[in-house]
């Protein structure tokens, strides 16, 4: 029974990891670009939520709206004015610029919020759960996270395959040199893609704040989980990313069930095994 419980909790945890990963997957899909500061942006969203709701005492719904809007604007501006300038054949500049951003964000957060770990208390949400039998109970918050992940990925899929913006994004993904010839503006399209990714990052950060303790250096671990979910699921396949998140989550909870010290290690090992057995991930749609 404890194993079934571990499995269920792992699936739900996978929802959070899929939320972490969706933005990364989207940015890679459109721009072949990996943001090393991705996890740090998630942590920034978590701190913003904490500031709005706890320090300023705003209504949580207004807090969520503010975080989402701010991250969206920041994502657009960052891509349009900084990251677009280093995109290109040479992979080094984007890696180094986002790595530099990661260091800057971590230290700026440290300066503003101190190294103390924080958590957004959610009152009844923290403790309420739906019970199934003796040892299996599903927390309301993890369930919300999972539903949010499915909804976010479903929405992204809808935008990608059912709207004219999505057509433009897919066209840019297929051939960035032809799109400008047809009247598209790559700089703007890339910025829109990062904005969409940042909206998901905002949601992921808000759930991170509610789910676990976090501190200014929590970003890199989130980046690694996101990255692992993307690779396990297969490049360019956003539903695969959800599955990758679930596999990672289940590996972690089963590892934790064996020994608390093995939680993160078990997740990394699951990732490495997939990498060895199927280097392109389980359901790849494009080539790296």
């Amino acid at each position, binding site marked *: 029974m404890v194993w079934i419980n571990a499995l269920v909790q792992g699936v739900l945890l996978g929802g959070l990891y899929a939320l972490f990963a969706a933005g990364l997957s989207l940015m890679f899909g459109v721009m*072949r*670009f*990996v943001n*090393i500061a991705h996890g740090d942006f998630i942590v920034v969203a978590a701190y913003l939520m904490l500031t709005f709701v706890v320090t300023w005492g705003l209504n949580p719904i207004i807090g969520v709206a503010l975080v989402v809007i701010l991250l969206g604007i920041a994502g657009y501006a960052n891509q349009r004015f*900084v990251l677009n*300038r*280093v995109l290109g054949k*040479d*992979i*080094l*500049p*984007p*890696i*180094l*610029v986002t*790595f*530099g*951003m990661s*260091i*800057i964000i971590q*230290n*700026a957060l*440290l*300066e503003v919020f101190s190294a103390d770990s924080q958590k957004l208390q959610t009152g009844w949400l923290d403790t309420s759960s739906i019970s199934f039998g003796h040892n299996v109970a599903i927390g309301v918050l993890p369930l919300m996270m999972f539903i949010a992940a499915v909804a976010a990925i479903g929405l992204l899929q809808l935008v990608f395959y059912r709207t004219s913006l999505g057509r433009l994004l897919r066209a840019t993904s297929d051939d960035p040199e032809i799109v400008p010839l047809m009247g598209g503006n790559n700089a703007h399209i890339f910025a829109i893609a990062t904005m969409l990714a940042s909206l998901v990052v905002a949601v992921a950060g808000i759930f991170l704040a509610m789910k676990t303790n976090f501190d200014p250096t929590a970003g*890199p671990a989130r*980046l*690694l989980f996101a*990255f*692992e979910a993307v*690779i396990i699921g297969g490049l360019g396949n956003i539903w695969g990313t959800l599955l990758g998140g679930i596999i990672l989550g289940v590996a972690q909870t089963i590892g934790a069930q064996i020994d608390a*010290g*093995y939680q*993160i*290690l078990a997740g*990394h*090992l699951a*990732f*490495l095994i997939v*990498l*060895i057995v199927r*280097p392109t991930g389980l359901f790849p749609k494009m080539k*790296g």
Partner: protein
Amino acid sequence: MATISHTAARGQKASALTQKLMLALVLIVTVALAFAPMWAGRADLRLLMEAFSFLALAQMWNMLAGYTGLVSVGQQAFVGLGGYLFFALAIFSGIPVLLAIPAAAIATALIAIPTGWVAFRLQGAYFAIGTWVIAEVFRLIAAQASALGGGSGISLPVELAKSIAATRDGRDQVMYYIAFAIAVLSVVGVWGLLRSRWGLALTAIRDSENAAESVGVNTRRAKFLIYVLTAGFTGLTGSFIFLQKLRITPEAAFSVNEWTAFVIFIVVIGGIGTIEGPILGVIIFFALRQIAADWGTWYLIMMGSIAIGVMLIDKRGIWGALKSRYNLAIFPVGHRLD
């Protein structure tokens, strides 16, 4: 046509003179550093040893990222492995401490073979993050190794530290020369490698991987070889770093900030893809650190900003910009048609 070749010859002559002057300067500084235990105080020696360690790490990362295009953000894996293997060998195997350092380096290189086999399944930016995951795996394993103190780490037993030399001054001197040798070897080794047949292949890969492949360079093999070699030398440096610290913990040994972020900043600011760049970068890094020692987190924010600035303004870094402008090279590795 005659005028053009005339000015070109004069330009080359002028740069040949500055080149000789710079080489002389480098030699004078190297000789002065070789005698540092005679003129420098204890604190200065410590600072120099730290700078030497970072120079070696920077040369290795530059070799990897600057020449073979393997951008790793997981080099802390090999610093940590070198440190931990050194502690394990020195404490449990009974090998003399000074022999345990190269032994740990070789063991690190051996571990890098399967590690590289896995990491090479990823390309570009994904390779970068993949190496980071692998470093985390080693950190988590080290935290589980109870014989080596688990998560809280382990100290080098006093008698082992004392086995290096009887007196404190003697130990300082031995340690200094190990660090000095590692730094000199990293520069001379990279220089020698780049001037060899392999170096030509590596420079070709740096300039264009497809073109290198088309003229018969086995790029995958060359990259793998460099990956393993740099891992071994990074491990060597790591084992020295933790011999100097006398204590190792998983957090310190596998720190991404210390052993990768700082190293990347050094190389990028100094000039990636050149031997001189990391040297210049180390000087700038340590000079800024002395000035900004009390700034705490602001110092790191500044370093990150400078690195981003370099990438946005001129990604060749300071030395790269100087080199293309004045045609300089202290350690010439280029091939020119006369």
